[in-house]
Each structure stands twice: as structure tokens, then as C-alpha cells.
């Protein structure tokens, strides 16, 4: 018996060491690349896009993949994060302090988006399936056309003036945080509740799962990370307009989630990376790449309806106990 527990301890320790090594290596590498400009600026930009898209995909996957609801309006949360953080940067910290308070600004953007997530979480108590999809869709449109009508944030003309504060190490750090928190969330007892809502909401509430509480938390966490991604995006592009957060953006996020595979962290990372990099590689095709991408998606859906990973997961992202039970 004690041998078994030793074995379990060993797995946990090994995991911890591997995670620390990956984290440290990723951070050092990105810092070095940023500091000494080892890679081409364009490649760095693509890497940052990949990181932001991973955060977005993870956040959408929490709702669509793990909870089984269908959100088509996540670009709305992204817009909230982007606008709040840009307003803060431009109106209050438009000087040397900006660089120091940047992480706080991003965090505030995320938190505001998280609270806006409540607007969608509350209707989801009563509405499910296609109708919730419509609610999220109309939420996205409300945010977009609302922003178009507020003159103090530039209206339809957009908003600019942010300095380029998003750098590769920051994107890397936030990506690590997103993967870490969402992985732990879905494997916690809350996460079990989230999964049970996906399988059967009525049955799970009969099994004493507090579905309302879990929905609120899942939506808030998801929109928080969407807001973070929006804030990073705004400080990378240095120009945001309501049009950058319309349904086309939401569709793009959906494509990344379903390309990688629902309910899978490994899938989200793969889906976001494959999509972003493929889109860049196909750039010589010009406009035809935008024709090819949806075609590929349709073909993928027909022959592999569950995406690349399709509900499977790299064993590294599974809880240690699974590994332990399998090895026993």
C-alpha cells in the first residue's frame, strides 16, 4: 500500500518538476528572444498571435467544450477587455508609468470582462442550446453596435493611442497562467460539475450539483480570459475598433476550438497554433486563403467531427490520479 502511495507521490513530483522546467524554459526563451531580437519581428508577431489565440481558444473551450453550452459571442468579452484596458492606458497611464502598470491594466480589463460575463451567465439558467447561442450572438452585436455609438471611445472610427506594451514574455506568461488555471479548474470538483452539465443538466442538478453557481463561475472565468486576450491584443495592434470584435472574430474563435477538439486543453493549444500558423503560411495565396480555410474546416468536420484531439487529452494535462490509476 505504501509503495502505491510512494508511486503517486513520485508522479506528482515528476509533474511539478516538468511543469517548472517548461515554464522556466518558456519564460527565459521568450525573454531572450525579446531582449536580443533573436528572431525576426514578423515571427515574433506571429508567436504573439499564437499565444493570444491560445488564451481565447481555452476560454471559449471552457464554455463550448467542457460545459457543452454554445457561445457564439465571445468576441464581445474580448472587446470589453480591449476597450477597458486601452482606456486606462491612454487616459490615465499615458506616460512612463504605463509600462509598469501594464499587467494591472490587463488584469483590470480581464476582471471587467469577467463581470460582463454575468450578463450572459444569468440568462443561461433558463435558456439552453440554440437559444443560448442566439443570446450570446445578440450580446456580441449589442457590444459592437453599442461601442459604435459611444463617441468618447471613438465610435465606429476606432480607438488608438496605446503604446505597444504587449511583448512576447507577457503573452507567454499569460498563456501559461491561462493553461494552468483552466486545467486546474476543469479537474477540480467545480470542473466535474461543469462536465456534468455538459452530459446532462437535469441529472446533474438531481445529483446536488449547484448548476447556477457553476454556470456563473464558468462564464466569469471564461470571459475573464477572453478579456485578458482582448487587452493583450489591443496593446499589440495599438488600434481597436468595434469592427475588430464582430461576429467574424467570434467565428474564427469557434473554428479554432472545433479544429483542435472540444473539451481538451491540448486540443485548444494545437487548434490555435495550427490555425494561426497555417493562416500565415498561406498568406501568399492572398484572398484565396480565406476561401481555403473554411473549406478545410468543412472537410475536417465531415471526416473528423470531433476535431484533431476530439475529447482526448495529453496525459500531462490530466490529473495525476488518472495516471496513477492507469499505471497501477
Amino acid at each position, binding site marked *: 500500500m505504501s509503495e502505491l502511495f510512494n508511486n503517486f507521490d513520485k508522479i506528482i513530483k515528476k509533474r511539478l518538476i516538468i511543469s517548472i522546467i517548461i515554464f522556466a524554459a518558456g519564460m527565459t526563451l521568450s525573454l531572450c528572444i525579446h531582449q536580443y531580437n533573436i528572431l525576426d519581428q514578423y515571427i515574433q508577431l506571429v508567436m504573439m498571435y499564437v499565444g493570444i489565440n491560445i488564451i481565447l481558444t481555452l476560454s471559449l473551450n471552457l464554455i*463550448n467544450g467542457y460545459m457543452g453550452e*454554445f457561445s457564439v459571442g465571445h468576441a464581445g468579452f474580448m472587446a470589453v477587455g480591449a476597450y477597458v484596458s486601452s482606456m486606462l492606458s491612454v487616459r490615465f497611464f499615458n506616460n512612463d508609468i504605463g509600462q509598469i502598470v501594464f499587467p494591472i491594466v490587463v488584469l483590470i480589463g480581464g476582471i471587467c470582462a469577467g463581470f460582463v460575463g454575468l450578463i450572459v451567465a444569468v*440568462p443561461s439558467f*433558463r*435558456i439552453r442550446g*440554440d*437559444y443560448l*447561442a*442566439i*443570446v450570446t*450572438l*445578440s*450580446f456580441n*452585436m*449589442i457590444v*459592437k*453596435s*453599442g461601442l*459604435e*455609438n459611444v463617441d468618447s471611445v471613438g465610435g*465606429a472610427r476606432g480607438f488608438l493611442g496605446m503604446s505597444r506594451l504587449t511583448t512576447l514574455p507577457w503573452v507567454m506568461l499569460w498563456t501559461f497562467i491561462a493553461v494552468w488555471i483552466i486545467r486546474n479548474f476543469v479537474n477540480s470538483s467545480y470542473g466535474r460539475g461543469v462536465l456534468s452539465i455538459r452530459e*446532462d443538466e*437535469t*441529472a446533474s442538478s438531481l445529483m446536488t450539483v449547484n448548476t447556477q453557481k457553476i454556470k456563473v463561475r464558468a462564464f466569469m472565468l471564461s470571459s475573464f480570459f477572453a478579456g485578458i486576450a482582448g487587452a493583450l491584443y489591443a496593446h499589440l495592434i495599438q488600434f481597436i475598433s468595434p469592427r475588430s470584435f464582430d*461576429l*467574424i472574430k467570434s*467565428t474564427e474563435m*469557434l*473554428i479554432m476550438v*472545433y479544429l483542435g477538439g*472540444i473539451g481538451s486543453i491540448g486540443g485548444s493549444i494545437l487548434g490555435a497554433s495550427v490555425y494561426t500558423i497555417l493562416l500565415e503560411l498561406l498568406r501568399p495565396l492572398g*484572398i*484565396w486563403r*480565406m*476561401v481555403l*480555410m*473554411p*473549406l478545410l*474546416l*468543412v472537410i475536417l*468536420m*465531415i471526416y473528423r*467531427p*470531433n476535431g484533431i484531439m476530439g475529447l482526448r487529452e495529453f496525459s500531462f494535462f490530466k490529473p495525476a490520479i488518472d495516471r496513477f490509476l492507469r499505471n497501477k
Partner: protein
Amino acid sequence: MREFEGSALKINNLLYLFQQLLNILQIGSIYAMIALGYTMVYGVLLLINFAHGDLFMIGAFITFLSATYLNFGFIPSLILSMTATALLGVTIERTAYKPLRNAPKVSVIITALGVGVFLENLTLAISPYPKHVPQLIENTIYNIKGLTLSLVQIIIITFSVVLMIGLDFLVRKTKLGMAIRAISWDMQAVPLMGIPLNKIISITFAIGAGLGGAAGVFYAAAYPVIDPYMGIMVGWKAFIAAVVGGIGNIRGAMLGGYALGAIEVAVMVFLPTTYRDLISFLLLFILLIFRPYGIFGKPRNVKI
């Protein structure tokens, strides 16, 4: 004298009201026609056909092609457009949706989104600039006691009302309509009764897409500048109309289309035009919170 002015103002107000009513009927007809396509497909397959708005756009582009290169008038363009979009609708159903009939529902929705984006970007790649459709209907304006009435308005409203009455008759009174209703009632039992399921589903797609194409022609006749992305916004709004009426309910979709038209025209009369989308979507959001299944929709019972 003052009294006279007052009554003139009253007549003016009444005229203004009728004028706006005509606008509501015109835009509402277009929304209702597209909403019907959404609602019919949802009725048989329980699938939100996100590519439907783009079929509307294709309909408008076919009108542009036929009017520019073949010098077709309004009615030949309408027939050509409806046939072509109906064929396209069936092709999409056969190639993209049919293999997924037993797949998870989300994969089908993503496929529909993908097909929509594909159609948009294909059109964009072929014709990158907005196109100007030649005049399809003579620009005659009738003046009835101060009420201005254009031929375009009359034609759009009459044609769509005729088409919608025809559809209502088809669904309620014919055998084909009975089969369509039967599928939306119970898809599993229908093949057991000797009804060719796939054929009926394809016909439903053809009818829905054809109506969408017709809406595209009407739109091109009324607002002649067309671009590949025009289907997105109009399509989503028509979708709202379908939801407001209770998706799956054909008369509901028609009513939803006119209701949305009324809201939009009212917003444009009282507020700046930019508030139009905001108010329509806000009303939808509020409606769905209080009546999640639309005005006429009924919740489907889910067995556990």
C-alpha cells in the same frame, strides 16, 4: 386659419405614418422571406443554417450577373436567381450537411458557419469591389393624394406576399407540406411511413434557399449596391425575426420579419440611424430572457 393649419398637420402626420408603414412592409417582406428559410430548415433538421444569409447574398449577385450580362428584366432575374439558389441550397445540404446527419449537433453548426464563410470569401475573391446592380424595375412613382408610392415597393410587397401565401398553402394543404410537417414532428418515424426522408429534406432546403434568393433579388432591386458581406448582417437580422416568431413556426417567421421591420423603421424615425442594430438586438436579448422560445414557439420536450 389656425384650425386649418392644425388639420393640415394632422393629414401630414397620417401621410407620414402611411409612408413609414410602406417602408415597414418593404423591409419587413425581405426579412420575412429570409426568415422563412431559417425556420423551414430548423423545422426539419433542428439545424440553424448559418449559411442561409449568404444564399441571400448569392441571390443578389446572380441578379447582378443576369441583369448586367444577359440584360434580364426583373421577372427572368427572379426566376433564374431562385432556381440557382435553390440548387445551391440542395448542393450544400447534400455535400456538407448530409454526411453529418448522425454527428454531434455542434459539428453541423460549425460546418454551417464554415459554408457561410466559404461562400462570402469565394464571392469576395471573385469580385472584390461592391457592385452596382442595373435598374431592374422602372423608377415610376405614383402619387395618391400626397402618398408617394414607388413601383419597386409595390412589386416587392406583392411578390413576397404572393410567395408567402403560396408557401403557407404548400405547407398546410399539400402532401409535400404534410411530409415536411411530419419530419419536424418525428424524424425517426417518418421513413417507416414510406416517406422519402432525404428527398423531403432536400426539397425543404430548395424551398428555403429559393425564398432567400428571391429576397436577394428584391433587395438588389430596392438597394442596388451589393457586396459579398451583405448577407451577414441581413441574414442575422432575419434569423432574429425567425427566433422572435418562434423558430420552426412558419407564420411566426413571417410575423417576426414584419415586426423587425417595424422596430427598425421606428428606431430610424426617432433616433439616429446608427442605433438601429443596437435597439433591434437589445430587444431580442430582452425578449429571449422573458420568452426563451419566441412569441409563437413552444419548448420541445426533452426526454431524459
